[in-house]
């Protein structure tokens, strides 16, 4: 092995130390210095490449896998139903009466209705998402509120979770969890895909209001219709 061959080998793999290479290094001071330099550089690269890893990543992976089957079912149902709502104008249940309205049961609408699927999505996925504590981009959330002409409530309201809603087609949906004076509520903002008509649905101890606004719509999920109405007043 000559000097050129040795240097080529070390550029490919600075940790390489086979017999020929060792023999050459023992006899050639210049190549020996080159090898030390390359090994040192390699340590630097390794050190720099080892970016910090989020704590308990493996636990979250295992937890997500354990929850994935039911969660994914709800997510797929919501994705399918939002697509249908947008494409076929399937939301036909109208609110009745000022401020009150008729509440439709989840059973009557079926599990693929966006509002019903949204409740399932929240119940199946939100605990895990809140535990992960991930925060999305507040500017993106404010932009979604603005595009829908909604006010982001300020007094006594805390954004508990903020992230993309993976079930809204094209990745434009925002998933916002708010702690409010009337309890925790979830907003799924769909800024670019309008619903055709408002609906209120009760299912699994939750109430969901799906409403078209401007160029899109939102689904608000709360513990009761009364709470949902109060939050809607704050949004308008």
């Amino acid at each position, binding site marked *: 092995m000559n000097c050129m061959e040795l240097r080529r080998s070390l550029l490919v793999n600075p940790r390489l130390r086979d017999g020929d290479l060792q023999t050459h290094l023992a006899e050639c001071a210049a190549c020996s210095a080159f090898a*030390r330099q390359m090994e*040192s*550089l390699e340590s*630097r690269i*390794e050190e*720099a490449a080892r970016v910090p890893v989020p704590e308990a990543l493996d636990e979250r992976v295992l937890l*997500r896998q354990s929850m994935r089957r039911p969660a994914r079912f709800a997510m797929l149902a919501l994705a399918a139903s939002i697509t249908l709502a947008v494409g076929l104008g399937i939301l036909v249940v109208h609110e009745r009466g000022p401020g009150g309205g008729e509440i439709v049961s989840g059973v009557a609408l079926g599990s693929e209705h966006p509002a019903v699927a949204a409740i399932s999505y929240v119940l199946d996925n939100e605990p895990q998402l809140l535990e992960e504590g991930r925060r999305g981009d507040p500017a993106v959330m404010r932009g979604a509120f603005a595009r829908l002409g909604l006010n982001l409530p300020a007094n006594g309201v805390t954004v508990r979770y903020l992230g993309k809603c993976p079930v809204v087609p094209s990745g434009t949906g925002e998933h916002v969890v708010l702690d409010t004076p009337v309890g925790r509520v979830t907003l799924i903002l769909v800024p670019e895909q309008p619903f055709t008509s408002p609906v209120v649905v009760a299912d699994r101890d939750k109430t969901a209001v799906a409403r078209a606004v401007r160029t899109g719509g939102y689904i608000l999920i709360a513990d009761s219709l009364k709470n949902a109405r109060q939050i809607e007043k704050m949004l308008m």
Partner: protein
Amino acid sequence: MFEGGKSRFERVVRAFSTELYRYAYWLCRDRFVAEDLVQETFARAWQAWEKLQDENAVKAWLYSILRNEHARLFERKRLDRDDEQDLGEIPDTVSSNPHASLEIREAIHSLPQSYREPLLLQVLGGFSCSEIAGLMGISEGAVMTRLSRARLAFRQLPGWDVMTRKKAS
């Protein structure tokens, strides 16, 4: 939850999630997207777990899934990114010389993807040139060329020899 393969799958998650995250980070340079990629990689791995014939190949298999997931993600949508901000966001908790480490990160970051990827597969994954060639679908010779050029690029860094001397001392 994982029935028969549960403990084996758990062992694999614990063994490889860290290095897969780092590899994912350098592919997408976004901490949140990197975690999503790792989650999706293991989700797909679990779905196909029973098809895994050779347990010794699990590591290369996971890297391969992650590469594909990353490619799919970037086919679907281009993520708008502020690369310099990303590097600044990485807290330096392990480096003995944070300044030099940042310079090296910037150098890794500025490498063309075709050079950066084989380098990271070697440095983080410990793969041989032959394995990297298999993962990337290129020849072993091409891998060797790219690794050499990547390291030559580091040697162009201002003061790189000083940095390596400090490390060696």
